[in-house]
């Protein structure tokens, strides 16, 4: 590590103010701070600071994704071979390897495209590279169909970063969750690759493999076709990250324990989803409505969305009360869209994007309560005087 430091120090003057490559300073600093927490000391304000920084927070979210990611890669292989010939399954490592070969290129493309744009904007704007994309770059491939062509992934990522984030002013300023912007873009632009019963298992349609999701078959009026244990463990078709509720819960445990993600949003969304599910159960006119409310929470993108998407602090509501409301409506709307949207039986993406748009409004009214309280106090004081 001394070697790294010496090398970096040697080239640093070139990128500093007045240096030959001054313009590329932000990019250089981006690499520098990835290797070393810098030697910056406090100049104004409090002289000591909490150990936490944004990089540590973001890396924690990435770490929370790892269980779902590894299981998801295994499941890619499992789904493929299971539908091919359940009696002739390769070993676990082979399944994992098969999935990794399919999935890792997506991760690499997502990071290369996204980070290149982030660095370019940092250089263009002359600010430091923010760590936000470390998480978005991992989320995007996890919520895409496994067979999505890489160029489509690249275009979706570029759209999400440029239009979804940088157009609003970069990290911390975006209204919508960038990962979901990427998915929504792909969904509307490349619909045949993003929906239907052929995309959620790799090479579906070839060799007699089918890959209908549970929600898909329910929407068609059929039964779920999988056991509750399958749903919970994640032995079902779907995008890579979303299938295993168990693995998502492990990630959620890390996020909740460290306080990185808001428990209010998670609990609110779960309650919202349950309430809507119960209402539909009571009505129960079709297979989707009849599907038990608690199983609604296990299938599709619900769990993944609640834990990793809805909790994105930038696009979520920012006040404590607002987070409850925001979370509740995400859960409620996700199940509602699922049931009513015949063309595409999943509602999580739409529910979160919709509530992203409403989050500032929710906060506005929560804060208005605080302002009102203050004004009332003033009025009372004036009356008393």
């Amino acid at each position, binding site marked *: 590590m001394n070697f790294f*430091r010496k090398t970096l120090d040697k080239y640093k003057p070139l990128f500093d103010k007045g240096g030959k490559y001054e313009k590329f300073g932000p990019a250089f600093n981006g690499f520098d701070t990835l290797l070393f927490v810098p030697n910056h000391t406090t100049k104004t304000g409090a002289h000591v600071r909490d150990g936490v920084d944004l990089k540590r927070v973001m890396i924690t979210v990435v770490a929370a994704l790892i269980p779902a990611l590894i299981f998801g890669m295994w499941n890619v292989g499992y789904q493929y071979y299971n539908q091919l010939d359940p009696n002739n399954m390769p070993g676990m490592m082979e399944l994992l390897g098969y999935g990794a070969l399919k999935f890792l290129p997506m991760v690499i493309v997502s990071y290369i495209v996204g980070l290149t744009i982030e660095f370019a904007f940092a250089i263009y704007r002359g600010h430091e590279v*923010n760590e936000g994309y470390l998480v978005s770059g991992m989320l995007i491939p996890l919520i895409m169909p496994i067979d999505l062509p890489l160029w489509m992934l690249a275009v979706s990522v570029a759209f999400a970063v440029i239009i979804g984030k940088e157009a609003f002013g970069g990290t911390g300023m975006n209204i919508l969750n960038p990962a979901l912007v990427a998915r929504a873009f792909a969904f509307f632009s490349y619909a045949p690759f993003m929906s239907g019963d052929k995309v959620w298992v790799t090479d579906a349609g070839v060799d007699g493999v089918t890959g209908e999701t549970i929600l898909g078959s329910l929407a068609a009026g059929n039964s779920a076709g999988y056991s509750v244990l399958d749903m919970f463990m994640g032995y079902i078709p779907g995008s890579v990250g979303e299938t295993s509720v168990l693995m998502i819960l492990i990630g959620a445990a890390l996020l909740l324990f*460290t306080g990185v993600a808001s428990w209010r949003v998670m609990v609110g969304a779960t309650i919202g989803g349950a309430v809507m599910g119960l209402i539909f159960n009571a009505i129960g006119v079709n297979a989707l409505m009849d599907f038990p409310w608690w199983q609604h929470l296990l299938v599709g993108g619900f769990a993944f969305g609640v834990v990793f998407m809805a909790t994105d602090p930038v696009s979520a509501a920012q006040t404590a009360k607002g987070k409850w409301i925001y979370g509740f409506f995400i859960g409620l709307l996700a199940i509602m869209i699922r049931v009513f949207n015949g063309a595409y039986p999943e509602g999580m993406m739409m529910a979160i994007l919709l509530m992203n748009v409403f989050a500032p409004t929710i906060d506005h009214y929560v804060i208005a309560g605080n302002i009102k309280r203050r004004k009332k106090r003033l009025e009372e004081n004036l009356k008393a005087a």
Partner: protein
Amino acid sequence: MYKFAWFLKTINSNINMSQDIRIRKGLDIKLKGKAEKVISDAPRSKDFAIKPTDIQGVVPKLTVKVGDKVKAGSPLFFSKSNDKIKFLSPVSGVISEVERGAKRKILAVKITSDAKNEYHDFGTKNPSNLSTAEVKEYLLEGGCWPFIKQRPYDIVANPADEPKAIFISGINTAPLAADNSFVLEEEKEAFQAGINALTKLTTGNVHLSVDGNSTSFLNNVQGVTLHNVTGKHPAGNVGVQIHKINPINQGERVWTIAPQDVVVIGRLFLTGKYDATRTMALAGSEVDVPRYHKITQGENVAELLKGKLSSDNVRVISGDVLTGTSIGKDGYFGFYDNLISVIPEGNYYNFMGWVPFTNNTKFSMSKLFFSWLSPNKEYVLDTNLNGEERALVVTGEMEKVMPIDIYPMQLLKAAMIGDIEKMENLGIYEVAPEDFALIDFTNTSKIEAQKIIREALDIMIKEVG
């Protein structure tokens, strides 16, 4: 009859209870090197400096020039906006230098002491025999006015105002803070005299808050409304206490004063002298034997620190580590302070220092370090920023250390863009920079919250007044 008396007593105690303050939102940062309760002798310096930069809301106008002889109590400068607000020399001697910065801004007026300790005599007074105007006149003349600060804005009070109340926080909850009950114990008489004077300045109450977990002479001070304060830092911040007792509304003024400064006022009435000596805690992990010392306002600390520091790469702070001013090893003790904190500088690189659950010698409010496992451990914290400034991403963390009923992040954002109406709505009048010190400390994005609030308050002074 007995029952009725009991009933009254219960109601009464309930009313008193409601005046007590318990703070749940906050953070106690436990640092190594708390001062032992012993007052030890220290060599006195001959160099003194009064720094206008310590004083908010005052543009100084000099009344002395280099070479002038001054007594302790002779004016050095006054406030440009009100020439009655005078700033006095804490010692007798000769003006040695007027240090100026950019645009000839006065940074410090330096005095070389002649060790004669000649005091200007203002004549002793008994505040109970004086009118409000006479008390004000005497405090202004005797150089004690700058100790009285005004909320909103946290600036030196305007003598023409009539505050709705005066607040004194008798409890320090900041890291390594001096223990008031120990420091002021031998100043009981002066403290009471100071309180007697302050009660003349308002038709409202003089509120004194004390540590709810212990009793000291402060519990027996006469003429004040007493409040027991318990809980985490910033429970000791006077702004937090004001908010809980009698919050400031738009257009209102309250005054605050630190207990060590009440003593200086008391001495003026009792002895007729401007005597700004204090008992100060010298604390911090880099001090070999952290103890209390006698020091005078504006005194140079080089002599005091000589041989007492365990390392060379340190930061010397006049005040506490959250709100104090870095003064260097040969700097001057602050105008209002009663603490010097010495902590290590943190100018080092940390290889992959961001990996979660590593570098556990650092303290964090988050659970991304293991510091939550040992809540009573005393930490050695350095001045490393532990990261770089970033956009505001994480939400909800500022609220955890803000016991005042405001939305800190939204207020900071309004302050950043200088939106006056929004700031008013969000409660800018109720806060001072020190109330945002813990946000400086905890926020993941390393935003300089105190600086943003100070600048916003300065805008408010200019635009609203």
